């Protein structure tokens, strides 16, 4: 369990993280690495307090600041930093000098087995494959039995295979050790695959916290929605609200939509309407009059995505549909886009 309140270099955040993987998600420059560095002790915050389990690592008020070597944090930094002048085995031994030789051997052997590094062990980092280097970095961070693992995702240079390896290792760490892990990432898919919780960061501020699914389904603000890459965001006005029938009516620039009742909103509120691209229903427009919540739109572009097709309509409305569905109706010019009431969210 880590609790941190940190103020440094334009950063101001406060959060707790328990066992399992907590993802720090945000764009470059959001302060993810600063947070990890502050917890590891590589950076001294201006103010705040960092507590790991029951131990105070940093306290601005009483000027307590433990040096990194006494913090018991494993840190997989962005550059990995395997010592280039040592073999992988020596890299693993480096954190263990305080132990007796037999114990040291035992632990190194165990780690080499766990991360299948036996063949690579006598070689130096530049002589082994990137996947082996990656496994060795994690093994080295874990071998000293830290109380917390900090993981900074490399900003570039991870191909698909290496990223898969990265995910596998993190998943294994989560399952085998039960260690709290703080993972900095710019990839939403990584958050969904691995994280129990995510902290949404922008420009040194915490925008939202919660399980990834919940954060994506219900962004706390327009800013949060934009950071999450949500494409369909439209300014709207609430023109009708009926709690009895659980309905509401939203006026957008060009059309009106019917949704469920929005608790806590007032008639006449200016809000942002947010619809996930995958929740829109699209079909061919046969010229008949659109029904309720259906809008006839012209398709401007269709983009091939790895797992779906992204349709961009006039008015910056974006819908994702499965590739076979698109193949059936790709000759359409006019489309009918339906906004299901339960897909409408206001921010």
């Amino acid at each position, binding site marked *: 369990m880590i609790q941190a309140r940190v103020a440094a270099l334009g950063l101001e955040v406060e959060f707790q993280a328990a066992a399992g993987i907590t993802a720090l998600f945000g764009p470059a420059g959001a302060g993810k690495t600063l947070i990890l560095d502050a917890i*590891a*002790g*590589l950076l001294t915050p201006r103010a705040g307090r960092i507590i790991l389990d029951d131990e105070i690592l940093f306290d601005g008020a009483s000027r307590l600041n433990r*040096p*990194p*070597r*006494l*913090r018991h*944090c*494993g*840190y997989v*930094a*962005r*550059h990995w*930093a395997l*010592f*280039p*002048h040592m073999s992988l085995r020596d890299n693993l031994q*480096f*954190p263990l*000098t*305080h132990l007796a030789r037999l114990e040291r051997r035992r632990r190194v052997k165990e780690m080499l087995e766990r991360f299948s590094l036996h063949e690579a062990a006598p070689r130096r980092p*530049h002589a082994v494959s990137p996947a082996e280097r990656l496994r060795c970095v994690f093994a*080295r*961070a874990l071998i*000293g039995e830290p109380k917390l693992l900090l993981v900074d995702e490399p900003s570039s240079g991870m191909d698909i295979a290496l990223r898969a390896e990265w995910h596998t290792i993190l998943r294994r760490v989560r399952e085998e050790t039960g260690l709290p892990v703080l993972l900095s990432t710019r990839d939403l898919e990584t958050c969904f695959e691995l994280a129990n919780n995510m902290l949404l960061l922008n420009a040194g501020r915490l925008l939202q916290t919660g399980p990834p699914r919940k954060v994506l389904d219900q962004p706390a603000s327009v800013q949060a929605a934009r950071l999450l890459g949500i494409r369909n965001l439209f300014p709207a006005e609430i023109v009708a609200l009926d709690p009895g029938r659980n309905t509401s009516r939203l006026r957008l620039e060009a059309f009106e939509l019917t949704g469920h009742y929005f608790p806590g909103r007032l008639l006449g509120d200016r809000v942002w309407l947010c619809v996930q691209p995958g929740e829109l229903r699209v079909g061919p427009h046969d010229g008949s009059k659109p029904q309720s919540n259906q809008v006839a739109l012209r398709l401007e572009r269709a983009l091939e995505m790895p797992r779906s097709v992204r349709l961009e309509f006039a008015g910056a409305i974006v819908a994702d549909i499965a590739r076979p569905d698109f193949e059936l109706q790709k000759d359409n010019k006019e489309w009918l886009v339906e906004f299901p009431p339960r897909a409408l969210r206001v921010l």
Partner: protein
Amino acid sequence: MSLDPLWLSLRYAGLATLLSIPPGMLLAYILARREFPGRDLLDAAANLPLVLPPAVLIYYLLSALRRWPVAFSWDWAVALSTIYTLPLLMRMSRASLAAVDHSFENAARCLGASELRVFWWITTPLAWRGLLAAMLAGLARAVADFGLTAIVIINSKDTAQTFALLLLIGVAVLAALYAGNRLQRGRAPA
């Protein structure tokens, strides 16, 4: 021809270089990696011997020690040469220590290493080429200093021999500097 002056100068220059390594490395590390008030002043002071003419510096030193005038002795010569070798060695070691990527040192700290251990097991081995080159440059400088002195003291009458010795010393200095440069160029893959 007698090679005594050459051996003498090599021996004493070697001694002066050895003596300047511990303080030179310490200064280099402190200036390359630590932030503290008065750092720039220390930096300037450590570089002083590099810019002051030797006569001026020696005059200061000897006046301060109230040993003026002093008779020539090898002990004194080694001590003074150390002062001259130190800034050169310090500057070059500092550059190569500063070039070591911080992330390696930080990784070592997070893995529980003390500052001394980080310096000894991470920074120094990663900078060894530069450090060795710095030592060679320091040695070259000291050899040149001593060569002149040795020739004046031992062998001032025979001009032909003096010329030959000067040439030899020049070649030795050139060789040391060349070896240092080659070392620094052949960086190990990171």
